[in-house]
C-alpha cells in the first residue's frame, strides 16, 4: 500500500491503486459493502413487507393484493387508535422523565462526592441489562401478591393497600412508561455528563469575572453548550421509545384491555398471534412517517450547525 509496494506493483495493480487514490472511487469502495448489506437485508425485506401490508396475507395463506384496505381497517379500528395514542403518551412520558432525571443526574455526577466513580458506573446498570430481563425484575416488583413496592408503601404507612400497577388499565400505561424511562435515563445522563465535562473551565471563569451569577452561568454557558448533545440524545431516545417492543411485551403483552399496546406490540400481536401478516406489517409501517420527520429534522439541524 505504501510507496514501495506501489513502485513494485505490476501495471494493473498500479492502475488499481491509482484508482483508489480518487476520492470518488475510494468513497464507493468503502461505502459499497454497507450499501450492499443494507440493500440485501433491509431494503429487500422492507419491500417484501410493504407488499405484505398491501395484501390480505396470513401466516398460512399468501393472500391477494388488496390495496390500502389494511390501512383503512386500521383507521377505523378503535384498538389501533388507542394504540397510537398510547404510543405517543408512552414516548412523551418516557422522554420527559429521561430528560428531567437524566439532566439532573448528570449535574449531580459532575460534582465531587465520595464514591463518585462507583456511583457513575452503577447508574449505568439499567442501560446494560438485557431489556427483557430488566423488565422481568419490574414484573416481579409489580407482582400483585409479592410486590416490594407495595410492601414498602404499606409498611411506611403511605397507603393501606398497594395499587394494581399492571392490572389497572389507567395505571398500567404509567407503569410501562416508568420502566421505559428507567432503562433510558442512564444513557441520557452519561451523554449529558460527557458534554458537561467537555466545557472548558475558562468559560465559567470568564463569565464569573463578567459578573454572571450561578443561574446566569447555567443559562448562558452550560445550556447552550450542552443543548446540541441533549437534542441528539433526545432524538435517539424518541426513536428507541417510539418503536420499543421489549418493555410492553415483557410487562403486559399490551393488556389489560389493550390499554398499554404500543405500535410495535400491536403489530407483533396482529401479525403473529392473530396471524394477519398483512395487518401486522401495515401497523409497523405506520410508525415510519413520524420517525422520518424526526430524522430529517435532526439531520438538517446538524447540517445547519456544521456550516
Amino acid at each position, binding site marked *: 500500500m505504501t510507496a514501495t509496494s506501489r513502485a513494485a506493483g505490476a501495471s494493473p495493480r498500479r492502475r488499481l491503486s491509482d484508482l483508489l487514490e480518487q476520492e470518488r472511487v475510494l468513497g464507493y469502495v468503502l461505502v459499497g459493502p454497507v450499501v450492499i448489506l443494507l440493500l440485501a437485508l433491509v431494503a429487500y425485506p422492507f419491500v417484501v413487507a410493504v407488499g405484505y401490508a398491501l395484501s390480505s396475507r396470513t401466516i398460512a395463506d399468501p393472500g391477494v393484493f*388488496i390495496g390500502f384496505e389494511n390501512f383503512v*381497517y386500521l383507521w377505523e379500528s378503535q384498538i389501533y387508535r388507542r394504540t397510537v395514542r398510547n404510543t405517543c403518551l408512552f414516548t412523551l412520558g418516557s422522554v420527559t422523565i429521561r430528560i428531567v432525571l437524566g439532566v439532573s443526574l448528570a449535574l449531580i455526577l459532575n460534582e465531587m462526592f465520595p464514591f463518585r466513580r462507583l456511583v457513575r458506573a452503577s447508574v449505568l446498570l439499567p442501560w446494560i441489562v438485557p431489556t427483557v430481563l430488566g423488565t422481568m425484575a419490574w414484573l416481579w416488583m409489580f407482582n400483585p401478591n409479592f410486590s416490594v413496592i407495595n410492601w414498602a408503601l404499606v409498611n411506611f404507612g403511605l397507603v393501606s393497600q398497594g395499587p394494581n400497577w399492571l*392490572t389497572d388499565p389507567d395505571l398500567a400505561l404509567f407503569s410501562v412508561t416508568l420502566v421505559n424511562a428507567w432503562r433510558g435515563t442512564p444513557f441520557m445522563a452519561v451523554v449529558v455528563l460527557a458534554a458537561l465535562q467537555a466545557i472548558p473551565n475558562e468559560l465559567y471563569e470568564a463569565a464569573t469575572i463578567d459578573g454572571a451569577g450561578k443561574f446566569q452561568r447555567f443559562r448562558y454557558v452550560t445550556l447552550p453548550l450542552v443543548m446540541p448533545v441533549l437534542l441528539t440524545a433526545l432524538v435517539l431516545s424518541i426513536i428507541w421509545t417510539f418503536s420499543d417492543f421489549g418493555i410492553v411485551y415483557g410487562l403486559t403483552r399490551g*393488556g389489560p384491555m389493550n390499554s398499554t399496546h404500543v405500535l410495535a406490540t400491536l403489530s407483533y400481536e396482529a401479525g403473529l*398471534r392473530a*396471524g394477519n401478516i398483512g395487518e401486522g406489517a401495515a401497523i409497523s409501517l405506520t410508525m415510519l412517517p413520524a420517525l422520518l420527520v424526526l430524522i430529517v429534522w435532526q439531520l438538517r439541524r446538524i447540517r445547519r450547525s456544521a456550516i
Partner: protein
Amino acid sequence: MIRENPKIIRRRKLGRRSVLAAGGGVAAAASFGFPSIAQSSLRGTRLTVLASNWFVPENNTQLDQLAADVSRDTGMEVRIERFAGDELSTKVASVIATGRGADIAVGVEFDTYLYANRLADVTELADEIGRTYGGWFDVAQAACMVNGRWRSLCIGQAPAAWNYRVDHFAAAGINQFPDTFDDLLKAAQTLHARGTPIGMTLGHASGDGRSTNYPVLWAFGGKEFADDGRTVTLDSPQTLQAVEWYAEIYKYFIPGTTAWLDADNNQAFLASRISATVNVNTIYLASRAAADPARKAVADNMNHGLWPRGPAGRFANYNINVWLPFASSQNQEGQRAFLRAWYSRNFLPNWTKTGQSYFIPTFAGFDKEDVWPADPKLQIFRELNKLNRLPGHSGPPTPAAAEAVSKYILVDMFAKACTGQMKPAEAVKWAAREYEQIARRRRN
C-alpha cells in the same frame, strides 16, 4: 387462572430426578410396538417437537421420558424444545410461515383452522386412535377436523367447573349446587344477603373470560354464528335472554368482577371473599397441597359443581391443546411414530392420571378407564369432560370466532349490560355489529 404454588415448584425439582431414576427400569419394559431398531426406517432421522410447560410438573417429565423412549426404540432422535405459552404460539406461527424449525408442536383449539392447509393429514391415525379409546368427543373433532380431514390430534382440555364453598352454601340453606339458572340467581341473592357473595369473571381474562361467559350464551340458546361458521346470528331473543339474566345476577356479585383477570377470582376465592366462581381445578389443587392451615381449610370446605342447565341445555367451555403435525416436515413417518407412542396404552392413560384431572384427553372411552384421581372432590371432572364446546359453536372454531375471543366481544357484551353502560338490547346489538365487522373482513 393458573397460580403457582411454590410447593409445586419444589416438587418438580424432586420429581424429575426420581422419575428419571425410576424411569430406566419402567421404560425398558414399555414398548410402543415399533419394529426393532435394526429394521427401523426412522433410524438416524430427527424429530423436533415444540412444547409448552404444562401445569402439573410430572406431565412434563413424562413427555421427556416418552421422547427418550421413542428415541431408543426407533433410533430417531426426538428433541423436545420448550417455550412459554406466548412464545410457543410465535414459534408455531413462524414454522407455519417458513416451513422450517420443527416437525410437531403443541397448539391450541383455533390453530387447526388457522393453519389447516399447512398441516399434515392424520385422518387414518385419528381413526385408529379413536377406536382404541372408544371414540373422540365431538369437541375434539370440532377442534381438529377441517373439511372432513383430521389436521391435528386433540391432546386434551382443562375443564373449568363451578368452584363453590359448601359451608357458605349450607349456611344459606342450599345443600346442592344449583341446577338451573333461576336457582343460581336465587342462590346468588341469598348468598349476597348473607355477606358471602359469588363472583363471575367479566374482565379481559384470557382463560376465565371465555370459560365463564360462553356457556351462559349457549345455555340460553344464543349462538355467535350459524352452523356454516359465516353467518352472524348473535342478535337473537335467546342472546337477549342470556344478557338479561346476567345483568340481573350481577347485582348480587362481589363488586369489581368486570376488572377481574385470570388470577383474581382465584385470589378472592382463596381469601374466602367469594363463595363461588368458575375456574379450573387449580384453586383446589393448590389449596389441597398448601401447608398454611387457612388455605388448607379452603380445600376442605369447597367442592366442584356442574354448570346449571339452561333452556337449551348444559354447556361449558375449556382451553384445548392439540398436536399440530406440520405438513412441511421432512419426517412425516417420524411424526406418526411419535404420535402413536403418545396415544399408546402404555403412555396416555398414565399421563392422564398423573394430571389430576387438570388436563384430560377427549375420549368417550376414558369414562371407564383408570385415569381418574381418587379424590372425591375431583370426581365431577369425569362429567365436566363431556360438556366442552368451542367458541363459534355450533359452527366450527373459525379464525373469525378466534378473533372475537381475542377481542373479548362476548365478555364485553355481558359486562356492558351488567354495569348499566348499555341496556341489554343495546349491548346485544353492539356485539352483533362487532361480529359482523370481523366476519366481513375474514370472508374477504
